[in-house]
């Protein structure tokens, strides 16, 4: 089953973990065959929100979340169960600086 591990960090911690360490941990997960995809994200002030209402595309700057932690990256992993997903999430380096939200992926109904 797939789980999306969303990495949240406070803005001043975005670079607290060296990129090389993140790359290495991603490599290890890939070698174990549990990693589907993983990326780090630019800070939230680069974000744009898109909505379609009544056929019109509405584009806005942001969001500027109230919360102190922002989405900083993600790992899509393939794990046997939640325990394995938690175990993988605990090895994601930024977990020690911010938090990792583990969300099971929902298969779309055919």
């Amino acid at each position, binding site marked *: 089953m797939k789980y999306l591990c969303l990495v949240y960090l406070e803005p001043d911690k975005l670079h607290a973990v060296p990129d090389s360490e993140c790359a290495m941990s991603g490599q290890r997960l890939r070698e174990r065959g549990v990693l589907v995809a993983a990326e780090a994200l630019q800070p939230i002030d680069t974000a744009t929100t898109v909505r379609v209402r009544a056929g019109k595309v509405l584009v806005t700057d942001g969001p500027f979340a109230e919360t102190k932690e922002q989405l900083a990256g993600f790992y899509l992993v393939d794990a046997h169960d*939640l325990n394995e997903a938690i175990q993988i999430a605990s090895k994601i380096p930024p977990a020690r600086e911010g938090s990792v939200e583990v969300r*099971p992926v929902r298969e779309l109904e055919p």
Partner: protein
Amino acid sequence: MAAEPIQQTIESVYESESRRVLATLIRLLGDFDAAEEALHDAFRAALEQWPRDGVPSNPRAWLVSAGRFKAIDAARRRTRFDALDDMGEKAEPVFIDTAAWADDESVDDDRLRLVFTCCHPALAPDAQVALTLREVCGLTTEEIARAFLTPAPTLAQRIVRAKAKIRDARIPYEVPSRADLPERLEAVLRVVYLVFNEGYSASSGEQVTRHDLSAEAIRLGRVLVELLPEPEAQGLLALMVLHDSRRAARTSPDGELVLLEDQDRSLWNRDQIAEGVRLVEQAFSSGAPGPYAIQAAIAAVHAEAPAAAATDWNEIVGLYDLLMRTAPSPIVELNRAVAMAMRDGPAAGLAVLDRLLDRGELRDYRLAHAVRGELCRRLGRTADAQVSFERALKLTRQEPERRLIERRLAEVSK
């Protein structure tokens, strides 16, 4: 004529086996709701067939296989897709060989799986408690709601959500590996102790129901010790049994709290004390007693003192020192200060307590101020005692506790 005793047999089988059967059915069916339905179907089948065919030699295995059969049958009837026929074919050979998956060992494992799944840290603490009481102990949603003074729909929702998370996030139905066991067992023991305390120290709600919660926690503690004789499981059971041994002496006939030193020790339950002491010894024999075992040992020292004045305070201070090394907390320090006051006199205890209060963590903790008031009272520092008791009074929300502090306050204000 013969129907009556069989009816009773089935009821007592339900009493003793239904939780075990459920735990095994959850493993076999992979779903809590399907397993509960299957459990009820299995007992309905027993009510029909046992009076006619007699009670099977292994009722548990019979119920498990009947439940499993009913569940497969129900799934078949719901959907007539070919895919399900595969499932039936796969299930058939296992179905014949019932004894293999309903033997004592795998059933015991299933009960542990159920406990660890209900107390999985990915579930909200409230949900862990509710789920454990419902699935492991077999309490109804209404009973749990009453015990926790929560509306039944809220509680039902909590249980539904937890079960959905177990299914959708795939929380595994398994006993944790050796490496994860200490941490996961800690979570289980925390749930059990929470249930116990809810029943033991609650000041409101139906007394009877609340007592049931403590009894339920003790029963659960026994199951754990039986299935997983870890020192901390023994320690927690000892702690609960020793606390429970004082139940009759803890409140006066008019419902007032009676402090440990004022309790009528002849009301203490000797059998429970003997059991608690035995468990403490077992837990300590491991060589590295944990926080529950140490707290139980402290309770055992009190339990073995024939009178309050005969308490071995030196031993208790030593145990608090040990507890400070294993699980330090300001509350433990407060209790240690009390023990020191009893051993070395109120002035010594007060000196330790004041240093602790200066650190600020216990500034809003009612018992810290109540203890300070009591120590000042014993030293004749009436004005200081009054200030501390008043502060404690402002912070307390428990009715009997409030009355107790008010009585003390009235004494020093005279």
